C-alpha cells in the first residue's frame, strides 16, 4: 500500500527496523476528546469494520455500544466453572469418603450433604474465579508480549491524554488511503500507519 502519492499523504508511516518487505499491519487515528472518539467509533462501526479497537486513558462509559461490541460470554464461562466446581466437589468427596476410603467419624454417615457443602462451596468459588481470570485472559488474547502499536511514539499518549482508534490490516475493509481520509473526515487529527 506504499505506492507513491501525487497529493500530500494523509498519514505518516512508521516502518519496523530491519523489515525486508514492509506491509501495513495497523492504522491508528488520534482524537482529542472522548466525545470525538465516541462519535467516530459509531461511524467506524456503521461503516462495517470488524477488526478494530479503541484505546483510551480511562474507561469511557458507553463505548461498548458505540463500537457495537456484543456482550461477552465470560459470565457463562464463570457459571460453567462454578457448576463444575460444585459437582466436582460433591463427586470427589462422595468417592473419597463413601467409596474409596470409608472412615467412621463419630457415627456420621460416610457421605452426607451437610458435611460436603463447605468443600463443594469453596471449589465453586475457586473454579468460578479461575474461569473469570483465565476466561478473561483467553478472550482478550492475553498474555501478549508485543503489539505493533507500541512502535508508534504518538500512541503512548493513549495512556495520558489522547484517544485512539486502531484498524488492523486484517480487516476486509482495510485500505490505508481511503481509511485515512475517512477517519480524517470524522474528526481524527493525526493518522499513522504502522508497517512490519
Amino acid at each position, binding site marked *: 500500500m506504499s505506492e507513491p502519492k501525487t497529493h500530500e499523504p494523509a498519514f505518516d508511516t512508521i516502518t519496523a527496523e530491519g523489515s525486508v518487505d514492509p506491509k501495513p499491519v495497523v492504522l491508528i487515528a488520534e482524537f482529542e476528546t472522548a466525545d470525538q472518539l465516541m462519535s467516530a467509533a459509531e461511524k467506524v462501526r456503521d461503516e462495517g469494520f470488524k477488526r478494530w479497537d479503541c484505546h483510551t486513558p480511562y*474507561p469511557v*462509559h*458507553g463505548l461498548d455500544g458505540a463500537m457495537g461490541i456484543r456482550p461477552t460470554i465470560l459470565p457463562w464461562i464463570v*457459571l460453567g466453572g462454578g457448576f463444575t466446581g460444585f459437582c466436582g466437589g460433591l463427586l470427589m468427596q462422595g468417592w473419597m469418603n463413601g467409596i474409596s476410603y470409608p472412615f467412621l467419624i463419630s457415627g456420621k454417615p460416610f457421605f452426607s450433604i*451437610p*458435611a460436603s457443602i463447605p468443600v463443594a462451596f469453596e471449589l465453586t468459588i475457586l473454579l468460578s474465579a479461575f474461569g473469570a481470570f483465565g476466561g478473561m485472559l483467553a478472550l482478550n488474547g492475553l498474555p501478549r508480549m508485543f503489539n505493533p502499536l507500541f512502535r508508534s511514539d504518538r500512541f503512548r499518549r493513549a495512556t495520558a491524554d489522547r484517544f485512539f482508534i486502531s484498524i488492523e490490516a486484517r480487516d476486509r475493509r482495510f485500505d490505508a488511503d481511503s481509511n485515512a481520509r475517512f477517519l480524517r473526515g470524522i474528526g481524527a487529527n493525526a493518522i499513522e500507519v504502522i508497517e512490519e
Partner: protein
Amino acid sequence: MGHKQTIDLSTENRSLGGLSGQLIGFGAVLAVLGLIGTLLLGNLEGAFDSHSEPHAAGGAAHSSDPTHSADHSADHSGGDHGMAHGYVSTWSVWHPYLVSASWLLAICLGAIFFVLIHHVTMASWSTVVRRLAEAVSRNFVLMGLLFIPTLMPGQMGKLYKWIHPDPGDSIIAVKEAYLNYDFFLIRMAIYFLIWIGISFWYHKNSVQQDADGDLKRTTRMAHFSPLGLILFAMSITFAAYDILMSLDAHWFSTIFGVYLFGGSVLSFHAFLALIVIWLQANGRLTRAVSDEHMQDIGKMMFAFTVFWAYIAFSQYMLYWYANIPEETAWFLRRQENMLWGSWGWLLIIGRFLIPFLFIMSKHVKRSRPILAVAAIWVLIMQWADMYYLVMPQINGGEEFPFTMVDITIPIGFLGLFLIGLALSLRGHSLIAEKDPRMPESLAFENA
C-alpha cells in the same frame, strides 16, 4: 466525561403529591381487610377463645409429650419433673401476630442499615434512593406500636415459655438474670429508642439539607454512621435473641442475629425495588433512578440471598456436626416431621435456589417487571422464614399450626406499613436534593 449529560433534577417529578392519598387509601383497604379478616376468620377458627385449642392435640402435648425434644431437655432439667420445655406449648393468635410483626420489622432494620452503610462508605450509587430508605426506616415507630401488645404479661406468657418456666427447669433458671420480664421490657425499649433515634435523626438531617444545602450535614451524618452501625449491630443481634430466639429458651445460637440481619437486608432491598418501580410507574423519579441503579439494587438482593443461605447453612452445619442434644433440639423440631421438614426445604429452594438462579442474570435486574416479581417472591419468603422461626415452637412442632389469620394479619400489617410509608414520604422531595454526591449518583453507570 462529556458524552452523557447529567439529568437535570428540576425536570423530574420528585414529590409524592397525589400518590400519598392513593398509597394511604390502598394501605387503609389492606388494613381494614386484614382486621375484618382476622376477626371473622379468627373467630371462626376459635383463635380468640381464651381456653380453646384450634388444634385438638394442643392441650395434651404439654403433659404427655413423648418426643425427643422433651427427652433431652429432661436430661438437663435435673428435677424430678422430667417434662421441662423451653418452648411454648400451645397456639395463640399472638404467634401469627409475632410472625407478621417480625416480618415487617426486618424490612425496617434493612432500611436503617442501608442508610448507615451508605454514609459509612460514602457510597454514591445509592444516593438517589436514600430518601426512600430513610422514609421506610421511620416506620420503626409503627413497629414499636405493633410490638407493644406482645409485651403485655398475658401475651408474653403465651409466647415465651421462660416467663413461667416449668418447675425444676434448671436451664431457664440459670438464664433468669437475663431472661426476665422487667429486663426484657427495658431491652425492647432500648432497641426501639436506638432504631427510632437513628432513623429520625438521619431523615431530619437529610430533609433539612434539601432546604439549606449545608454540606456540614453530610459530614456530620457520615461521622456518626460508624457508631450508628455498631449500635445497629448490637441491637439487631440482641433483638433477634430476645424476640425470636428466646421463644425456645433452652436453645441458643450465636449466629442468630446475623441470620435475621441477612434476611432483613435482603427483604429491604426487595421492598426498595418495589417502591421505586411503583413510583416510576406513576411518573415519579423516572430518569433519576435508572436501569443502572435498579441493577445495583438487584445485585444487593442477589448478594444477600447468598449471604442468608451462607449464614443459615453455617448455623445448621455446626449443630449438625457437633450433634449435641441441647443444640439440635431446635432443628429436630423442624425436620423430624413431614410438615416442618417440607417447610425447611421450601426455604432452601424458595429462599435460596430459586432467587439465586433467577436474580443472577443482569437482564433480570435491569427489567423492572421481572425484578418486581423477584422482589415480591423474596418478601413472601421473608415471611415464610419468620414463620419457620416462630411456629414450630408450638406443641414441639408436632402439628402444622396454619390458620387463616396467618394470612390476614400480614395483610393488615402491610396496610399499616404502607400508610406509615406514605406519611413519611410526603411533604418533602423523594430524593436527597442537595446531597453533594447527587450528581455522581445520577451519572452512575455499572462498569
